[in-house]
């Protein structure tokens, strides 16, 4: 654990020796993954505690109904604002409100249904499940993008093995410990943005170290898959637009 924390600290401060020592190890991928999973779980701990505390309190159905009613009223108000800009059929707001109320009622009735194990057990298991799913979600995003970066890096002459590249780029997760404050209004998203930019910088540095690349070449390998993705999305949009225009 101490070693992992030292690695994370070195990565955060862009220390050359931390990166070089990490990529030279035989267990580079194991260490990288351990760091990624640890950071993701730590960042999610506060949310887990908040959720568990909320879920273990006795449920006040009346308060929940009032909260739901308030949300519906807010939605209706926003529809009224939108009416100034868009043409809506007569009675649209009333109908939408009726449907939302019916949907909420369905939700409350389902929540009242009995379960074989007690409700609090179910809620704890649900919270734990969501918490333990966090690393898998991060892993899926990281590994999915890393595949394309690895391909570009190889085409640019990268010499690192697959496990070295993945183990090195996993360091990008270190700044995401800031996500621990993600639930705080305004500050949370700002820290999220800082963590993302910091993570990208670490990604580039790790890629440069593991492949013996210049920072510029590593930046190209990092950015090209995203640019290709954006270009393909725009191309797809253009094709849809052209087809729509041709079709009348």
């Amino acid at each position: 654990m101490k070693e992992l924390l030292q690695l994370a600290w070195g990565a955060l401060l862009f220390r050359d020796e931390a990166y070089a020592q990490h990529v030279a190890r035989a267990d580079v991928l194991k260490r990288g993954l351990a760091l990624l999973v640890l950071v993701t779980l730590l960042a999610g701990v506060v949310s887990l505690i908040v959720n568990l505390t909320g879920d273990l309190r006795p449920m006040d159905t009346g308060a929940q109904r009032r909260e739901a009613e308030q949300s519906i009223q807010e939605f209706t108000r926003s529809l009224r604002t939108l009416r100034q800009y868009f043409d809506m059929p007569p009675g649209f707001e009333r109908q939408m409100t009726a449907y939302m109320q019916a949907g909420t009622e369905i939700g409350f009735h389902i929540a009242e249904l009995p379960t074989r194990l007690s409700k609090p057990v179910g809620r704890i298991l649900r919270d734990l499940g969501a918490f333990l799913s966090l690393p898998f979600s991060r892993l899926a995003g990281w590994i999915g993008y890393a595949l394309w970066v690895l391909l570009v890096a190889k085409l640019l002459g990268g010499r690192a093995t697959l496990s070295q590249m993945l183990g090195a780029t996993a360091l990008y997760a270190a700044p995401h410990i800031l996500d621990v404050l993600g639930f705080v209004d305004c500050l949370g998203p700002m820290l999220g943005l800082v963590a993302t930019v910091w993570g990208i910088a670490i990604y580039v540095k790790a890629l440069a170290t593991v492949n013996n690349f210049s920072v510029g070449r590593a930046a190209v390998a990092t950015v090209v898959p995203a640019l290709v993705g954006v270009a393909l999305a725009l191309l797809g949009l253009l094709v849809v637009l052209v087809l729509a225009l041709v079709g009348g």
Partner: protein
Amino acid sequence: MKALIRLAWEALFLSEVPYAEMRDDSTPLVRGLVLVALVALAVALVGLVGTALEWATTPNMRDVQQIVLDGIQQMPWYQELQSDPEFREMFSQQYELWWRVFPALFGAPDITNAALKIVTLPLGLAFVWLLYGLLAHLFARLLGGQEGLSQTLGCTALAVAPQLLNLATFLPYVAVGSVVSTWTLLCRYVALKTCHRLTWGRALAATLLPYIVFLVVVSFITCLGGAAAALIFGGGTSQ
């Protein structure tokens, strides 16, 4: 058994050592088959426990179905249309049909299905492993690989290692997601590269070509099915 599990664990981290060990083994095919069966069985058993816990913390789906139906019947659009008996009959049929499909699509716990997986998952994984292994072997040989089929199958069997991530579903509501399939692709790349001592480009081609063949065959069958359906149904109304 212990050695095989250690090999799978090491293979998960994309080290070439376990793949080389499997290639140089005297019975890679048998070890591969045992590994696939073991991993699949473990995942299915653990999945059954997770599904059972999820089922025990979820309300009865029949009751949920009834509540949703009651709610829909209170909605203005339903009340406008309910005077039409034909609509009522059709809605009732469609609603029953939806409830056979949607709960499974949205991940409602199904213990029968989870129990069946104890049989179907080992069979399914073994089938996919053999099919992929055969195609990958063919392409690896065409791209300059020198090893035999049993070596290829032994090494590609280690690529089931990412299925071990599914052991996390022992706890209900844990979503492992797409990471298993992507990781499997990476393991297959390392397996073919190590087994046949291919360059990275050739190994990548040998890894991806079976997927492309699969996509082409599926597209062909879909088109053929579509054409056949058009001939049958279109032919009947062309007069």
